[in-house]
């Protein structure tokens, strides 16, 4: 079995603040997982805001180098410092959908020009009508069309339209691996389901693997094969998505599931969280020494020494 992506004991430390108040942030701590080539899957990363999900995605894309550990794509170490041709080949195989489309798009560049340059660069197309056709097809997959975005700048589109353009752009090179950082956070429930179904179809019909970063436990349950749950830079639980989400074991995972808002009490104004659950999960995040332990059902759960 060949390996598509191997994330091996990866950590990332940032230093932040001025000279006098410099602080170190451990954004990701010792993350490891593997995606296999012949088992395309939707691999979901869920977790606390600020727990290192985007940092992990940026390292997989080679935009950020790990402080420790290594990431390999098809056996080759991922790095933005790779030779140009190698880097270009990598980029055509691993495409990103960035977290916030308002920040990701250059405000001065027309959306269609953006998509066209992706087509030109990775598909080696130069014929205008062929490029238009590729763009239109990609846009149709996300419920848009070239006619709707033609000539328009990012600020002229709604949040959901922009987010869908970002997905369409990433689909153009037909990548075997898609890294989607909260790709559907700005679209309505109906469209969200159709985009999530599109990711599913990419996996099932075209063998594309997707790393799906989201805060939405319901769509995660609906499409994921495996899931990891992160808290303060650490993976706290990892395994088959339905097994984990149906009966989460780690206190933070349980807190997450218990905090999902429901519509069944619509109008009752329920926003309280069990303070005991919050306290327990918070204490573990600060625990110094821990490791992932395997359970009989195959999941990995972080356990704490001396706890």
């Amino acid at each position: 079995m060949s390996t598509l992506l191997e994330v091996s004991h990866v950590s990332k430390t940032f230093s932040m603040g001025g000279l006098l108040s410099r602080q170190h942030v451990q954004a990701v701590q010792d993350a490891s997982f593997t995606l296999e080539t012949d088992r395309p899957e939707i691999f979901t990363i869920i977790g606390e805001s600020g727990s290192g999900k985007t940092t992990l995605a940026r390292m997989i894309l080679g935009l950020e180098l790990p402080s420790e550990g290594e990431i390999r794509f098809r056996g080759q170490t991922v790095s933005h410092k790779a030779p140009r041709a190698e880097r270009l080949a990598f980029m055509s195989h691993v495409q990103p959908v960035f977290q916030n489309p308002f920040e990701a798009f250059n405000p001065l560049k027309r959306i269609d020009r953006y998509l066209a340059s992706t087509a030109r660069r990775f598909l080696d197309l130069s014929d205008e009508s062929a490029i238009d056709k590729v763009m239109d097809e990609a846009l149709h997959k996300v419920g848009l069309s070239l006619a709707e975005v033609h000539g328009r700048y990012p600020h002229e589109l709604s949040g959901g339209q922009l987010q869908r353009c970002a997905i369409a752009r990433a689909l153009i090179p037909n990548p075997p691996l898609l890294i989607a950082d909260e790709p559907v956070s700005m679209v309505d429930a109906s469209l969200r389901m159709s985009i999530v179904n599109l990711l599913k179809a990419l996996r099932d019909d075209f063998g594309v693997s997707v790393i799906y970063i989201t805060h939405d436990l319901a769509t995660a349950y609906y499409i994921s094969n495996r899931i990891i749950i992160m808290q303060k830079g650490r993976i706290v639980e990892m395994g088959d998505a339905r097994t984990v989400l149906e009966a989460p074991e780690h206190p933070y995972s349980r807190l997450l599931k218990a905090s999902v808002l429901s519509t069944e009490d619509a109008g009752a104004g329920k926003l309280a969280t069990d303070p005991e659950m919050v306290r327990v999960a918070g204490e573990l995040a600060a625990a110094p020494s821990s490791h992932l332990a395997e359970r009989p059902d195959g999941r990995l759960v972080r356990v704490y020494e001396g706890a």
Partner: protein
Amino acid sequence: MTQDILKVNGLKAYYQMNYFGVEREVRAVDDITMTVRRNEVYGIAGESSSGKTSFIKVLAAAIRPPFRVVDGSVEYDFSGRTIDVTTASEEEVEAIRWKHLSYIMQGSMSVLNPVRRIGKTFEDFAARPLGLSGRAFRERVVGHLAKLKLPPNVLNAYPHELSGGMRQRVTIGLATVCHPEFIIADEPTTALDVVVQKEVLSLIRDIQREMGAAVIFVTHDMSVHANVADRVGIIYAGRLVEEGPTREMFFAPKHPYTAHLVASLPRIGDTSQRPALEGRPPNLADPPQGCRFHPRCPLAVDKCRREVPPLETVGKDHRTACWRWEDVEPLDHVHQAHSREAMA
């Protein structure tokens, strides 16, 4: 002092453009009349690109060409002082910003200057309205950020050094630290995990209650509306098509589009296909005749194709724009099962 803090009357606001010599008009806000009361949270939902952001941009007096108010008024009553932001001068609008009226924009972190530390940005916007400086100011801000689950050291950070959700919370912090009377928020919690999201929503609601302030917010997340809003309004193709008390909107919707929205929510533990809406979103440059929802509506009859349904009152605080509102039923089993007992 009246009960209403905001009155929107017959508001029409269009993007009027000239594309390669062709005139084009996107009617993003097309005849909206509604009010927001003091001491209430009003939630807005609707399809992607239906005009929600456009609508609240007008409310926030944050519009610029080619977007123009074509007709109607947007009148605030701040402690007895009224101001129509569609006609007010820039100085008048600046005078109410942050202290009386604050606006959290969708996705855009443009209030955060990329080369300025977060702490400096707080000083720029909030020090004067709060009338605080030095230690006292810093303490106030740190205390406020703590409620958003942000540590004090974010004040030393540059925007790019924070995660997406941290930046989003910083903008919420900026918009709420002065405790304004009216808060406008566009998708304020999209980048937050569900635990932090609850904390942030609680904070917004606490500020609102403490001050008797009003909040109007847009989100696609219907479960947020369910737990935060007092009333919910649904926008479809530039129009307000239904508004009502939160509970009724979920359990006894009176517009087929609302019923669809509520039913399209996926749930953990459920992998069944959700009913998708047929057809494409309407083109706001050339919207359908009659009811704009008719091409996609399961209940549409001839009349719907010809005549625009007015937004009529169908219950206390409940208005809908549908010729067939009496035939609308909740579409999914969860809300159906609850609907009778819940509304009894």
